[in-house]
C-alpha cells in the first residue's frame, strides 16, 4: 500500500443510497485481510435526502484518528462532489458517477486522477435495479485498489443470504459489472493500492457504541433501560441482543427520566445497572442524577454527545456536554465523568465506569460522541477473564453487633457499606432528602455538613484509583497539549506529526474529566508553561474547568462546525502557539 502505509477512501452521496453498507463491507474486507481499519461517517438529520459520507482509513499500523482529508474520493452525486471539492488534494483520486448519473459534467481537476464510472447507468440499464449502484461503485473501487474481491463476495453472501439467492446474485452481478467497467474503461494513473495485511486471530471490528455495550457486559451489567436517541441508540441495540443471553434484562422506557429511574431502582436492588443517552436525554436526567448522588446509588450513564444545544445538530459531532455532566444538577451533587478516546477505550472505560460507580457509590457518566459512537475500528479482542471487576462493598449481616445498621455511616473513606433488599438487618430508606447516618431525615447544620463532606470527600483520591491519564512527555518542550474524548486520537496524531517536523511538544490525555486528575495535570503544567486545549465546543468547556481547578491559563482552540478536528489543524495550531 502506498503513501506511508496509510490510505483513506471517502464515499459520499445521498442518505439511503447504500453508502453505509458498501463502506462497511470495504472496512470488513480490509480488516479480514489483516489491516488496521478505522471508519468515519456523517449523515444528515433527515431520514431521507441530504449528504451522507463514509470514510475508511486502512493502515498496517495502529490508526489514531480519521486523518486529514482523503486519498480517494468516490462521489455518488453532485452534492457529494460540491461538499468535498475544495478538499481534493493534488495527487488524490476522484471516482464519480458519470455519465448518466446526477453529476452533469465530466471532471478534470489538475493533478487529480479522475475516474468517471457510470454507476447509476450500469445499475439501471444493465442490472435493472437502481439500488445496486453502491455495489457497482464498490466493484470499481475494489478493482482499482485491489481490495480482496473474495472477501467482498463472502460479505455480500453473509449480508444478503437471508434475503434469498436472487438478492445475492444481483449484488454479485453489480460488483462484477463495476470491476469489469474499471478494468475495461479506466486507465489507472494513481499509485494507491491496498496490500494484504497479516490476518490476525485476536482482532475484532466493532463500533464505539457497541464497544460501550460490550464494556458493560464485561463489567457485569445485569440491567439496562434506555430511550432511543441518535447517536446513542446502538448501545441499546447491542445490549438488547446480548444482555438477555447473560440473563440480564433490557427495557426501552417511556423516556429518559424513566430510564434513569429504572436504573436507580435496579441498582438499589443490588444489580449493576446502566442507561445510555445523548444531550437532550442527559438534560432530562439532571434531577435524578442528583438523586443518585444523594442516595449514593451506583449508576452508569453513557452520554454519546452530539451537536447542541436543543435538537441542534443531532447527527453531527461535538464535545459539549462536559459542563452539564460535571456541573449539572441543582445543588452541589458529586459525580464522576470519564471520556474515552477511541473504540477500545469505550470498552475499558465503561468497565472502569462500573468499577468507580460500585466502589464509590456514585453516578458515573461516560462521555462519548457521535463520531466515536459510529466509528468502527479493528481492535484487539478483550479477554473476559482478564478484566478487573470491582463490586460494591456490601453490608454483612451480623457484623454490626448490637448496633442498628447505618446505611450512611460516616467512615474515614466516606464510603459506607450498602445492604440490598433481602438481607436481614440491612433495612434502611434510600433517600434524596438530607439524612442522618441511619438514613432518617435530618436537617441540622452539623449533620448536613458532615454528609456533604462525606459525599464529596469519598472522591478525593479517585485519581489514584482510576489511572486513566496518560502523559506523553517531551524534553525541552514549552508547549503541552491537553485533549479529551475522541479529540485525543487526533491530538496524538498531531503531536506525532509535529514532532516529525521537529516541533517540541508534550501532551497529556485525561480520561477522567471530573473530578479532574489534579496531581497529574498540575505536574504536567509545571513542566510545560504553555498549554493548548483543542476541543469541539463553543465555550472551551475543558479549558474552563482547568482554569477553575488549576492555575493554568490554557490557550483554547475551539471549533464547533459539527466536524472533528483533523490532525493537520492541530499541527498548525501547535506551530502557531509554540
Amino acid at each position, binding site marked *: 500500500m502506498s503513501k506511508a502505509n496509510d490510505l483513506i477512501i471517502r464515499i459520499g452521496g445521498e442518505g439511503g443510497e447504500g453508502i453505509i453498507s458498501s463502506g462497511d463491507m470495504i472496512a470488513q474486507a480490509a480488516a479480514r485481510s489483516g489491516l488496521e481499519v478505522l471508519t468515519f461517517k456523517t449523515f444528515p438529520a433527515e431520514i431521507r435526502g441530504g449528504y451522507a459520507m463514509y470514510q475508511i482509513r486502512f493502515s498496517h499500523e495502529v490508526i489514531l484518528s480519521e486523518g486529514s482529508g482523503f486519498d480517494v474520493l468516490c462521489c455518488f452525486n453532485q452534492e457529494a462532489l460540491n461538499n468535498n471539492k475544495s478538499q481534493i488534494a493534488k495527487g488524490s483520486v476522484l471516482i464519480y458517477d458519470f455519465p448518466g448519473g446526477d453529476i452533469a459534467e465530466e471532471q478534470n481537476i489538475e493533478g487529480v486522477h479522475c475516474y468517471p464510472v457510470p454507476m447509476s447507468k450500469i445499475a439501471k440499464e444493465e442490472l435493472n435495479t437502481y439500488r445496486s449502484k453502491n455495489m457497482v461503485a464498490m466493484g470499481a473501487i475494489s478493482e482499482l485498489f485491489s481490495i480482496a474481491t473474495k472477501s467482498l463476495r463472502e460479505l455480500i453472501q453473509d449480508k444478503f443470504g437471508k434475503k434469498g439467492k436472487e438478492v445475492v446474485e444481483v449484488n454479485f452481478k453489480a460488483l462484477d459489472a463495476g470491476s469489469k467497467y474499471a478494468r475495461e474503461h479506466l486507465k489507472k494513473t494513481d499509485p494507491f493500492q491496498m496490500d494484504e495485511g497479516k490476518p490476525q486471530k485476536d482482532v475484532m471490528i466493532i463500533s464505539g457504541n457497541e464497544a460501550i455495550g460490550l464494556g458493560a457486559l464485561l463489567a457485569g451489567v445485569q440491567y439496562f433501560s434506555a430511550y432511543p436517541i441518535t447517536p446513542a441508540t446502538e448501545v441499546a441495540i447491542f445490549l438488547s441482543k446480548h444482555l438477555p443471553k447473560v440473563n440480564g434484562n433490557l427495557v426501552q422506557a417511556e423516556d429518559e*427520566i424513566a430510564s434513569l429511574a*429504572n436504573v436507580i431502582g435496579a441498582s438499589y*436492588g443490588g444489580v449493576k445497572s446502566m442507561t445510555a443517552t445523548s444531550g437532550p436525554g442527559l438534560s432530562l436526567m439532571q434531577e435524578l442524577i442528583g438523586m443518585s448522588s444523594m442516595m449514593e446509588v451506583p449508576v452508569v450513564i453513557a452520554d454519546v454527545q452530539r451537536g447542541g444545544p436543543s435538537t441542534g445538530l443531532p447527527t453531527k459531532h461535538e464535545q459539549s456536554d462536559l459542563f452539564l455532566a460535571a456541573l449539572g444538577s441543582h445543588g452541589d451533587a458529586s459525580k464522576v465523568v470519564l471520556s474515552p478516546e477511541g473504540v477500545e477505550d469505550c470498552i475499558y472505560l465503561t468497565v472502569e465506569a462500573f468499577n468507580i460507580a460500585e466502589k464509590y457509590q456514585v453516578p458515573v457518566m461516560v462521555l462519548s460522541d457521535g463520531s466515536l459512537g459510529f466509528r468502527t475500528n479493528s481492535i484487539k479482542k478483550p479477554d473476559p477473564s482478564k478484566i478487573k471487576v470491582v463490586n460494591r462493598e456490601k453490608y454483612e449481616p451480623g457484623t454490626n453487633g448490637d448496633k442498628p445498621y447505618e446505611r450512611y455511616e460516616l467512615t474515614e473513606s466516606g464510603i459506607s457499606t450498602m445492604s440490598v433488599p*433481602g438481607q436481614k438487618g440491612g433495612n*434502611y430508606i434510600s433517600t434524596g432528602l438530607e439524612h442522618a447516618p441511619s438514613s432518617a*431525615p435530618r436537617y441540622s447544620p452539623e449533620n448536613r455538613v458532615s454528609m456533604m463532606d462525606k459525599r464529596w470527600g469519598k472522591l478525593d483520591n479517585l485519581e489514584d484509583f482510576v489511572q486513566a491519564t496518560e502523559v506523553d512527555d517531551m524534553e525541552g518542550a514549552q508547549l503541552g497539549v491537553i485533549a479529551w474524548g475522541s479529540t485525543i486520537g487526533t491530538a496524538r496524531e498531531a503531536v506525532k506529526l509535529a514532532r516529525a517536523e521537529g516541533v517540541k511538544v508534550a501532551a497529556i490525555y485525561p480520561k477522567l474529566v471530573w473530578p479532574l486528575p489534579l496531581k497529574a495535570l498540575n505536574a504536567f503544567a509545571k513542566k510545560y508553561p504553555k498549554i493548548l486545549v483543542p476541543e469541539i465546543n463553543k465555550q472551551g468547556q475543558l479549558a474552563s474547568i482547568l482554569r477553575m481547578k488549576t492555575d493554568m491559563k490554557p490557550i483554547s482552540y475551539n471549533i464547533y462546525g459539527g466536524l472533528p478536528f483533523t490532525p493537520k489543524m492541530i499541527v498548525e495550531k501547535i506551530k502557531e502557539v509554540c
Partner: protein
Amino acid sequence: MTTATEPMKAKDYKSTVPPTWCMGCGDYGVLNAVLKSFADNSISIDDTVLVSGIGCSSRFPYFVKTYGMHTAHGRVLPVAAGLKMARPDIRVIAFGGDGDGFSIGGGHVPHVVRKNTDLTYILMDNSIYGLTKGQVSPTSEVGMVTTTTPYGAPDNPVNPLAYCLTYGATYVAQGYSSKSKQVQELVTGAIEHKGFAFVNIISPCPTFNKLNTFDSYKETLEEVPADHDTSDLNAALKIALRAKEGKTPIGLLYKENRPTLVDRLTDIRKKAGGDENYDLNKIINTYIP
C-alpha cells in the same frame, strides 16, 4: 418472596421514626390498615421494599421497618419498576399522593400499567397538594379554591380509577382511609395479586382541603355493588365514572390475570438462551471481521 419467620403484629412493623402528618390526616388510617395487612400476611420486612415519591403521603416508607426508597416527585413508579425487574424475588409496594402520581408522575402510569409490572401501587388521594401547603391537585374539583386557584380551579379532574382501567391494570380498587378493615382487605388482595395492582385510597387532608372532608365524604361514598362482576371491565369503568356524578365508589372494581412484565422478560431471557455463566467470548467472536 418469603414470609416473616416469627409472627409479627401490626405495631411490630412500625419503625422508630414517628409519623410527621398533621393530627387528623387521613394518611394515619392508611398506615394502620397497611400495617395490619402486613401482619395478616406475615410479610417479611427483609424482602419488602416500600418505594415512594415526594409529598406528605410519600413519607410513608420512613414509618415502616421494611426496606424503602424515598425518591423524587413523580418518579415512584419507574423506580419501583426498575427494582422489580432487577429483583423479581422482592416484594415492591409503591406509595404516593395524587399530585405525585397523576400530575408530575402521570406520564409513567400508562406504561407501568400496560406492561402489567408486578407492583402494588397505593395512592393516598386527598385532592390537594399537602406538603406544599394547599395547591390545586389533578383530582381537585372544578371550581375548588386553593392557594393557586383563588378564583376556582378551571380544570376537570383526572379519574385515577378510570385511567388505570383504560391502561389495562389487572387489579383496581378504591378505599377510604377511615374504613380501615376494607382498606386492609383491598391492600391484602393487591399484595397477593400477580401483576399491577392499583389501590386508590381517599385520604382526606383536613389541614388544606376544606372542601373534601371526612364529613363531605359521608355523603358521597358508595360501596361497589355486591353483585358487581370484577372481571367485567365495562362495568368497572362505569363504577369508576361515578365520580362524574359526585360519587366515591369504594371496593374492588376489577381483577384479571394476564402475563406480567416479569413473565415477559423471563420469556425473552429464555428465548435468548439466558445463562448467568454465558461465555462472553461467544459474543465477542461474532465481531471478528
